[in-house]
């Protein structure tokens, strides 16, 4: 190993690339200095040989570092130019599609004077069912297979209406509140089913609330989501927590009402549930139904979001293979 030649090479190099080549030749895993280290065992004075070699390695490293500060400033400037050019190499981040949907709805409801709300994921049977007019052994519980934490009292909330029950118990009317809510049901995960659902719900309690307010507000929401030409019908539907109950159906986007596989032949797609809040529900929250009336509606966000973003596998929404294409110029 000719030390002087090495030092000469480093000091005379003119480009960063050549300097990098020298660095690898000397300090790389298969480099000259590592090869010298393998001779320690056969050296006459291994201890001294190792110490000298370490000193030399340190010297070379410092020399290369020093040289790198002066070599080929033009190349460094070019790289800087790329970094600082209008074409930004830095990414713009993206919101999750469900968040984008939730935000669109939040913005709509905020413009109508609504607050946004939240509630616990681990719920009690009382708030998830009892206060929503679904007593134990009610057949409506069959529609929502629960994941229990401590059966029968604690479970993962099966419906965003549990947040409504919390809201009614905690706040004094009048109020207008909307909220997204992740809900959980005991279902196997596959391409079209998941145990996690994303729902959105709105609740209003005030004097003189009528179905006209409910249907008008829902229609505005559907037009915001689907555009002004969307056709939605409102029909009688049963949910234990409301009376009268209202079911919005959207005309099938695929067949426009004639019936197809997407809508299972109905020509319409069920979009959720709603109604005037059942007097029992208000009463259980300490709100006098003779003074106050309210409406509530809820809908699932997963299917709509999947359709908008052309996602075919529901598992994509929660981890896995959802990715965001980097921003283009």
């Amino acid at each position, binding site marked *: 190993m000719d030390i002087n030649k090495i030092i000469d090479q480093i000091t005379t190099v003119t480009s960063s*690339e050549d300097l990098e080549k020298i660095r690898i030749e000397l300090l790389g895993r298969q480099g000259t200095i590592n090869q010298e280290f393998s001779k320690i065992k056969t050296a006459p004075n291994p201890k001294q040989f190792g110490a000298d070699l370490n000193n030399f390695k340190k010297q070379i490293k410092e020399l290369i570092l020093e040289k790198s500060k002066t070599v080929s400033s033009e190349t460094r400037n*070019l*790289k800087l*130019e790329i970094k600082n050019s*209008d074409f930004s*190499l830095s990414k713009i*981040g*993206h*919101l*999750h599609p469900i*968040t984008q949907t939730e935000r669109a709805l939040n913005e709509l409801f905020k413009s*109508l*004077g609504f*607050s*946004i709300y*939240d509630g616990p*994921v681990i719920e009690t049977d009382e708030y998830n069912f009892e206060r929503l007019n679904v007593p134990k*052994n009610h*057949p409506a519980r*069959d529609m929502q297979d629960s*994941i*229990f*934490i401590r*059966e029968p009292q604690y479970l993962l909330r099966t419906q965003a209406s549990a947040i409504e029950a919390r809201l009614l118990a905690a*706040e004094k009317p009048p109020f*207008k509140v909307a909220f997204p809510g*992740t809900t*959980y049901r*005991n279902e196997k995960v596959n391409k079209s089913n998941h*145990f996690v659902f994303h729902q959105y719900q709105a609740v209003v309690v005030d004097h003189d*609330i*009528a*179905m*006209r*307010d409910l*249907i008008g*507000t829902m*229609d505005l929401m559907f037009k915001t989501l689907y555009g002004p030409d969307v056709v939605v019908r*409102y*029909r009688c539907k*049963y949910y234990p927590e409301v*009376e009268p*109950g209202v*079911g919005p159906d959207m005309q099938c986007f695929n067949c426009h009402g004639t019936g197809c596989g997407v809508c*299972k*032949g109905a020509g319409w797609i*069920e979009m959720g549930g709603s109604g005037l809040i059942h007097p029992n529900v208000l009463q259980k929250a300490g709100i006098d139904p003779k003074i106050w009336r309210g409406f509530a509606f809820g809908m699932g966000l997963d299917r709509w979001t999947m359709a908008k*973003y052309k996602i075919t596998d529901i598992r*994509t*929404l*929660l*981890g896995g*293979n*959802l*990715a*965001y*294409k*980097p921003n*283009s*110029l």
Partner: protein
Amino acid sequence: MKLVLSELKKLLPGLPVEPQQLRDDLTMIGHFTNFYEKIDDEIIFDLDIKVNRGDCLGYYGLARDLSVLYNLPLVLPNLPQLNFPEYKLPILVTAKNEVKRIQAVKISNLKNIPSPDWLKKFLEFHQINSINTLVDLTNYIMFLYGLPCHAFDTAKSGDNLLWELNSHYSEFVTLDQTTLKLKPGILMVNNPTTPLSLSFLGGQACAIGLKTTETIIEMAVYDRTRVRLDSRFLKTTTEAGTRLEKDLDSDTIPLAFSHLIKLIIDLCHGQVSSQLFDYYPEAIALPKIKFDPQKPSVYSGIDIPVDFSLNVLQQLGCIIQNELVTPPSIRKDITLEEDLTEEVIRFWGYQKIPTNQPISNTILPDITPKIIYLTEYVKDVLTNLGYDEIRSWPLTQKPVDPNTVITTQNSINSEYPYLRQSLVQSLKVQLDQYDRYKLPAPQFFEIGKIFSQKDGQYLEKYSLGLYHSNSGQLSADIQALSEKLNAPLSPLSDGNFSEIILDDLKVDISNSIAPAQNYHSYELTSQIITLDANVNYDSKQNPVDLINHYSSLISPDLLWQIVITDVYHDQKTNKYRYTFRVSYYNCDDKTAKSTHLSVFNLL
């Protein structure tokens, strides 16, 4: 539930509408009708019946609704008065809290035969196999009135039927010879020595066959909770069980049961050989509901004439005296003034309520919790810093701290039993996925709940988890977030991952931040293939022009990302070399490589 139009027309002979209209009308009044189909000159509807309308799990209940909607008289079968002989059936009921009403009778000298074609066809439309006339008639009546009934071959069962809660049988063999393991407390019909039937499912021990000449037929209504619990315990669902789990009407039994007897005598030529056994210890107490006929207008927000309201209720069978309304016994779902109001509005028509009058935008006090504002703000800051948002499962395979982890008791996704205690667990799973798809240089975050328990209390907090492939940049970005929030952050760091509990932060989110823009996301169905290319130029280039140029040469369907990763000026040759890194997707390796070689003239 299936509905055969010709059968419905026996109850509503003047039914004036086309099938399409009937489908839509049924749906609008609350009986969602998926579709109808024409089979062998019959029109068959497919309906979803609401769980509170057990009465509509039969043609009779549906016809009652439609008779109001179309203002048609309901025509019931002409049933002759029956003469019952002296013999009293030795039936005993010990399950007194579970049995609401039973009617039973013995019929002898039967000639049971294969069912006539009309009956076979009717059952086929309801996806029930034909067995023989006697059995098929019990099913026919069940579909007609929504009330299950059962026939026992008394040559096998004897007459000493006993309605009891199981106390000593461990097994029960069903009609299809499945053996079910029983437990005490299940409602059963037995004789003194043998289990004969469950409340919702017949048994092999007394099965009706073509050789049956004597039978006891019965129709009953039970405590629906008992039936539901039994059905769930035995993991067995039947048409009878589906009905008996609902609130059924004991007072409809005489009509339905008489119809069954008449049909058996007509088709099997037997004679009634016992008195009518009628166990009905406690007649239904019907509610008297105070009703203001203005309420339908008030609740709907549109004018509905009082006369219309009262007329609808009367047509439904309600008795109106002064301001009190007594609904018919078949309508178990009507208990409140709001229920009566819904009845009026649904027949007036939901479609008459305007859709263009949303609630006013009056501003009420903002009760939005601060944490919501914080999480939304943090999302905007992080997307501005280039992070993508992910969402993940809240269940994990392994606990972080076994002492505080919360475990689910019954998740069918049993390989994920724990509620996550850290978002880093979720981020690592996501990173594995991105690695699998070879996503170039991912940087992402999640805001979600993490869970733990302490002293028997369940705790959940909002947490922020971050990943960056460059740990130095991750630290710099957390510092930037800290400055935006005007608060020191103390993240828990694990290499390229960091986590910050948001609930605990005292922050100021008044700093302005550009809201995140909406972008499309993509479902990765194939790996991203990343390839490099060096291109030499005689002079310095504008990198934007270069990117634009090469982007335009690659199909947008294939191009995931293109960046310049390096540039080098060779002073000896005075050439400028630009290094491009291109990521392709939606294609295989071969397509990516051939595209790459062609675009960069590397062939």
